[in-house]
C-alpha cells in the first residue's frame, strides 16, 4: 500500500515537472507544410490578377519621380492668385518723353513733356505650364497693373505738372530648359526672349491731350534667373544603427550624404520625369 502511494506520488511529481517545462511551442512540421500548401495555391491565383492589372513602369534607376504638370500648375496658380505685389515698375526721370516743335506767327517754341517719377505695382494674373516636350517646357505668363506717374513740361510756353494714370500689360509664352542638378533639384532655365511691355499713358497737360503708347522690350533672362524646383529628394540623411556600446540599448544616428548620379529629366505628355541613381556615403 505504502509502495503504491509512493509510486503514485513520484509519477504525479514527474508529470507536474514535465508540464511546468516552459519551452517554445511551435506547430509541427506537418502542420506548417499544410499551411504552406494552402497559401501556395491561393498565391498562384492572386499573382495572375496582379500581373493583369499592375501599372506599367520602368524602375531602371534607384529613384524615378513623376510629377504631374497639373501639380506644378496648382503651385503656380497659388503664386498668381496671391494678392502681394508681384512686379514693381519704377519710372525714372525721362527727358523728354515727348517733344513738339511749333511755330506761331514766326515764333518757334517747343512743347515737351518729361517723366519725373512714377511707381506702378503689377500683378501676375496668369502663370501656367502649357506645353511639355523633351527637355523643354512652355509657360503662359500675364502681368498687368496701373498706377500714377508724375510728369512736367511746357505747353505753349506755359510750364505745368500733372499725374496721369499709366497702365502696363504683358502677356506672352516663355520657354524653359529642364536641366537636372546634383543637389536634388529640377532647374528651369529661361530661354532668351524679348518680351513686350505694353505701356499706355493718357496725358493731359493743360489743354494738351496726348494718348501715349509704347511697347518696351524686356529681355526675359534679365528679369528671371534659373529657378531651382525641389525634386523632393534630399541629399542628407541619418541612419539609425544599433548602438553597440555596452550597457546602452537603442540607436545611434549616423549622418550620410546622398550622392546623385545618372540624372535625367524629361517632359512627357502630362508629367515631368526625374530619374536618378543614388550612392550613400558615410
Amino acid at each position, binding site marked *: 500500500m505504502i509502495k503504491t502511494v*509512493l509510486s503514485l506520488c513520484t509519477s504525479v511529481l514527474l508529470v507536474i515537472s514535465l508540464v511546468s517545462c516552459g519551452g517554445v511551442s511551435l506547430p509541427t512540421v506537418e502542420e506548417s507544410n499544410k499551411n504552406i500548401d494552402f497559401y501556395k495555391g491561393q498565391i498562384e491565383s492572386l499573382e495572375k490578377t496582379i500581373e493583369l492589372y499592375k501599372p506599367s513602369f520602368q524602375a531602371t534607376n534607384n529613384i524615378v519621380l*513623376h510629377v504631374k504638370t497639373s501639380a506644378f500648375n496648382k503651385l503656380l496658380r497659388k503664386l498668381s492668385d496671391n494678392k502681394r505685389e508681384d512686379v514693381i515698375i519704377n519710372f525714372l526721370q*525721362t527727358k523728354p518723353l515727348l517733344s513738339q516743335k511749333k511755330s506761331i506767327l514766326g515764333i518757334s517754341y517747343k512743347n515737351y513733356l518729361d517723366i519725373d517719377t512714377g511707381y506702378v505695382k503689377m500683378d501676375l494674373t496668369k502663370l501656367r505650364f502649357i506645353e511639355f516636350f523633351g527637355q523643354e517646357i512652355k509657360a503662359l505668363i500675364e502681368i498687368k497693373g496701373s498706377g500714377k506717374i508724375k510728369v512736367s513740361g511746357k505747353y505753349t510756353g506755359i510750364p505745368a505738372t500733372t499725374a496721369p494714370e499709366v497702365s502696363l500689360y504683358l502677356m506672352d509664352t516663355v520657354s524653359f530648359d529642364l536641366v537636372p542638378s546634383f543637389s536634388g533639384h529640377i532647374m528651369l532655365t529661361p530661354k532668351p526672349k524679348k518680351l513686350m511691355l505694353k505701356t499706355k499713358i493718357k496725358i493731359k497737360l493743360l489743354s494738351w491731350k496726348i494718348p501715349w503708347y509704347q511697347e518696351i522690350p524686356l529681355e526675359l533672362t534679365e528679369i528671371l534667373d534659373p529657378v531651382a524646383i525641389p525634386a523632393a529628394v534630399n541629399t542628407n540623411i541619418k541612419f539609425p544603427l*544599433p548602438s553597440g556600446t555596452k550597457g546602452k540599448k537603442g540607436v545611434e544616428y549616423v549622418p550620410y550624404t546622398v550622392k546623385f548620379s545618372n540624372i535625367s529629366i524629361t517632359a512627357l505628355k502630362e508629367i515631368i520625369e526625374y530619374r536618378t541613381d543614388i550612392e550613400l556615403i558615410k
Partner: protein
Amino acid sequence: MRILFFMMMLFSTAFLFNGCSIIKKIAGADIDPEEFDAHRKAKMYEIRHNSMMSLSQRLLDSKPVNDADIVFYLNEDFLIKILSQFIGARGILDESTTYIINDVLLELDYGSALAHFEIEAYNESYDINVDLKLDCIISLKIDKDELNLLLEPFNISPDVDAGGILSSSEDLIRDLIKINLADIGKSLGQTKLPIDLKNSLDISSNKAEVRSKVNLDFTIPDWKMDYSFKLREVLIFRDAMILALDLNKSEVR
C-alpha cells in the same frame, strides 16, 4: 514519518532544480530545427498571401495607381542600398548578449517587402556564438513630415543551416527566441528616406534696367512658396515600391 520526509524531499528537489533542465537531459533536445524552419516558411507564405490579397483588391479598384500629384518609384536596388547600411552593425540583445548583423537580404514580392537579417549573437555567460535569422516586414510611416522606413521584426529563429552548434546552446537559443521582438525593432530604429515631404520654392529677386525711350526699372521681388505633400498610398511590386503623394498645403510667404 520517513515516508512523509521522503515525499517532502522529492517535492523540494523538483522545485529546486529547473524542471525543464532535468527533463531535457532525460528526454533529449526540445528544439527541433526542422520545426523552426517549416514554421518560418509558413509564416512567410502567410504574409505573402495576405499582402497579395490586399494588393489585388486595390488593383481591382477603379482608381488608377499613378494618378497622384507625385509618384515615386523606388527600385529594388535602392532598398538594397538602404538595408546594406546595417551590415556590420553591432547591437545589444540583453545584459549579456550582443550581436552583429552579418548580412541582410531583401525580398520584394507583390504587396510585401521583407528584410531577412542574418545575425550572430554572442553570449558572455555561455561564451558562445549563435547564428540567428531575424525576419522583418518593411513598411513606411510618416512622422513629423518625414517619410520613414520601418523594420518590424515578426520572427526570430535559429539558423538551421548553422547545424552542429545547436545542440550545445539550446538553453541560449530558447532564451534568445523568447526575446521581445519589439525591443529588437526599436534598436533597428526608423530610417528617414531621402524624400522630402516639405519643400520650399525660392525665386530670387531680379531687376531689369530699361534705358531707351522711357527710363524704368522692372523689378521682380523675392518669391517664396512653401508646400508639402501627403502620402496617399504605398504599393509594393516585385521590382519597385511605389509611393503616391498628393500636394497638401501651399503658401506664398
